[in-house]
C-alpha cells in the first residue's frame, strides 16, 4: 500500500538537547494521510522525545515541525507562537503510557472536555460524538463511571476516545501498552488496530509490541542514539534487516 496524499506531519532537521545531553540528533520524517508509522528502539534512544516534540510537549531545540499545515520552528517562544502551538495540538491526539485521565471527571466528562472547552463544540454535539467514540472502544456503558473504577485497559481505551474526540489529523501513541498488565494489552491493541483499519487514522506509535507492528504498521522506524537508523516496511525490517543494531534489538524483543 502506498500513500501518495499530502504529508500530515513533516519533521525537518529536528534536534533536542536536555542540557549537555543531545537526545535527538537531526531527525527528518514525513507521515502521510492514513499511514501507520511504528517507532521502536531501545529506551533512551529518543523515540518518545520525538513523539513529544511533534505536539510540543517538548520544545525542539532546533528544526521544523509541521502538522496539518501549521508550521513551527524550535527555539524561543513568543505569545503568537504559543497560540500557534495550542492550535497545532488540537490537530494531534495524544495517548500516554500512564493514561493521564482526569480523575475528577466521569468517563464521558473526560471525552467531551476537549471538544467543549477548547474547540467550543456545543455540549449536545460533543456528548453525542463522545458516546459514539466510547461505543467504538466498547465502553459506552461506563460513560458515567469515574476512571478509578476502570481497569488499566479500559482507562487506556477511554484515553483513546478522549484523543479522538478532538477529531485530530494524527494520533500519537506514546508506549500505550507499557503500563498495562499483560492480559489487558490485547484490548488496547485491538482498539488501535480498528482505528487504523476502519477509520484509516494517521498514527505514530511508539511501542515494543512487534506483533502489532508487523500486522498494522505501514512503515517502521528503528531509532538508535537519536537518529533513525533504519526504516522500511515491516517485511523489510523483520525479514531483510540491514543494520546489525536493528538485528540485535529485534532478536532481543522477539
Amino acid at each position, binding site marked *: 500500500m502506498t500513500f501518495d496524499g499530502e504529508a500530515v506531519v513533516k519533521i525537518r532537521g529536528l534536534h533536542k538537547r536536555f542540557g549537555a545531553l543531545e537526545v535527538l540528533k537531526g531527525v527528518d520524517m514525513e507521515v502521510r494521510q492514513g499511514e501507520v508509522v511504528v517507532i521502536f528502539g531501545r529506551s533512551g534512544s529518543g523515540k518518545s522525545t520525538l513523539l513529544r516534540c511533534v*505536539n510540543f*510537549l517538548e520544545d525542539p531545540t532546533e528544526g521544523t515541525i509541521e502538522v496539518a499545515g501549521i508550521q513551527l520552528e524550535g527555539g524561543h517562544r513568543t505569545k503568537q507562537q504559543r497560540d500557534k502551538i*495550542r*492550535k497545532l*495540538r*488540537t490537530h*494531534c*491526539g*495524544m495517548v*500516554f503510557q*500512564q493514561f*493521564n*485521565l*482526569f*480523575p*475528577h*471527571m*466521569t468517563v464521558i466528562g473526560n471525552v467531551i*472536555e*476537549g471538544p467543549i*472547552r*477548547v474547540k467550543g463544540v456545543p455540549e449536545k454535539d460533543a456528548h453525542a460524538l463522545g458516546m459514539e467514540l466510547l461505543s467504538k472502544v466498547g465502553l459506552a456503558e461506563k460513560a458515567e463511571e*469515574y*476512571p*478509578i*473504577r476502570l481497569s488499566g485497559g479500559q482507562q487506556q481505551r477511554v484515553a483513546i476516545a*478522549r*484523543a479522538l474526540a*478532538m477529531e485530530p489529523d494524527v494520533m500519537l501513541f506514546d508506549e500505550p501498552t507499557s503500563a498495562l498488565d499483560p492480559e489487558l494489552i490485547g484490548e488496547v491493541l485491538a482498539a488501535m488496530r480498528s482505528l487504523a483499519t476502519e477509520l484509516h487514522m494517521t498514527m505514530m506509535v511508539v511501542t515494543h509490541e512487534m506483533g502489532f507492528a508487523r500486522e498494522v504498521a505501514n512503515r517502521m522506524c528503528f531509532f538508535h542514539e537519536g537518529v533513525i537508523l533504519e526504516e522500511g516496511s515491516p517485511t523489510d525490517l523483520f525479514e531483510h534487516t540491514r543494520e546489525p543494531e536493528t538485528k540485535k534489538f529485534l532478536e532481543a524483543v522477539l
Partner: protein
Amino acid sequence: MADATTAAPTRAGDSRPSLLPEDDLGRRGLFLMLAGWVFVLQAIHAGLRMLEDVMNGLPSWPVWAYSSIVVLSIIAAGLVFSSRSWGFYGAAAIAVLIAVWPLPAPTGGFVVFSGIELVLLALGMRAVGHPEAIQLAAATVPWRARVGVVQAVIAIVLVRVFLALEFDIPWIREHAWNIISKGLPLTLLISVIAIALAIVFALFGALARMSRNPVAYGLAGFYTSFFRGTPLIVQIFLIYFGLAEIGVRVRGTPLEPFGNLITLENTIAAIIAIGLNYGAYMTEIFRAGIQSVGHGQAEAADALGMSYGLRMRRIVLPQAVRVIIPPTGNEFIAMTKDSALAFTIGVLELFRRGDLAGREDFRGFEAYLIVAAVYWAMTGVLTFFQARLERKMGRGYVRAGEAGTKRTARKRTYLPTPAAQPGVTFVPGAGHGSGGGPGGAIFVTDDEGSTRSFGIDGTTSEPGRDEDER
C-alpha cells in the same frame, strides 16, 4: 453475646483452661470488669466529696479519711483488673473495709458503692482464675460505649468540681446570651471575611510562587516570608496603629488622601491583618496542593490544546482543591480562634464581650468559660462541615466497595461461630482493622488453616473478606 455460651471443644491433651469453656466466661468477666470500674468511680466520688465538704466548710470526715478511700479504691480497681485470684479476694476485702469504715458522720454513698462492688464481684466469681475473662468481656462492649462512659465521667467530674467551687450558674444564665448575641456575630464576620481574603491571597500567592515571572515570584516570596515570619499581633498593630500614624504624618501633603485611605477602622484592620497572615500560610498549602496534581495531568490538558488558564481552572485546581481542603479547614478553625486577637485594637468581638462582662462582676471564670464554650462549639460545627465537604470531594477517588469500609467493619460483634477444630489465641496489643481502638485481637484458626480474627474493639475479619482483597 448469647453466642458466648457456645461450647468450643478443647483440643485433646491440652491442659490449659480453654478460652471458651461451657460456662459463659465472657459474661462473668463482664461483672468483674464492671466491679473494677465501680471502684474507679468510688475513688473519683471520694475525691469530689472531699472537695465539696472542704469548700462547704461542713463538719465531716477528715481529709485523710477521704484520701484513704481514694487510695484504697484505686488499689482495689488495680487488683480486680490484675485478673489474679488473690487480687479478687483483696478487692472484696477492701470493699468490706470501706463499708464498715469506723468513722463518724456517714456522709453517704460509700456503703452503696461497696454493696454494688460486692454483688458484682460475687456474680463474677466463676471467672476467677481465668485471666483472659476480663479482656474477653471488654470485647463485648462496643468501643464507642467505652469511650462514651469515659466522656460521661469527665463531664460529671467537671460539673461537680465547678459546682463545688461555687460556680455562679445564675450569673451565666443572666449574661451568656448577652455576651454571645453581641460578640458572636462580629467574630463570625471577621472570620468569614478574613478567610475569603486569605483564600484569594493564597491562590494568587501560590500561582506566583510557581510562576517563572521574577516579579510575581519575588513579590510572593516577600509576602509569605514577612507574614509568616512576624507575629500576628505585631501585624495587627502595624496595620491599625502603624498605618494610622503614617496617615497623620502625610497630613497636609499631597499624599493626604492616601493617608486617609490607610487609616483604617479597627475591625477592618483586624480583618486585613488576619487575612494577610493566614493567606501567607495558605499560600504554601495551595502551592503544595497544586503541585501534588501529577505532571501527567497538565500534559494531558496541554495535549488537548488547553491554555494555561483553562488547564488551571478545569484540570489542576479541581484536583488540587481536594488536597487543599483539609489543611484549609484547619486554618479556618485556627483563624476563628485567632480572631480573638482583634480585641487588642478595641474590637468588641466575642472574647472582649465576655472579658468585659466578667471583669464587671468579678466572674471571670464563668465569663471565660462561656467564651471558650462558644469557640469550641464553633470549631465543632466547622469540623463537621469540613468532613462532609471532604467526602463530597472524594468522588472519583474511591473504588467500588471501598466506601464505608470503616463503618461496616465496626459494627460486627466479636464472638466466633464454632470452628471444626479450633486453635484459639488471644494476642493483646495486636492491631486489628483500621479503627483507632486499643490493640488486642483473638485469632481463631480452623483445620483448613483459614484464620478469623476478632479485635477487642469489636471488629472482625473473615477469610475472603480481607481488606486487601478488595
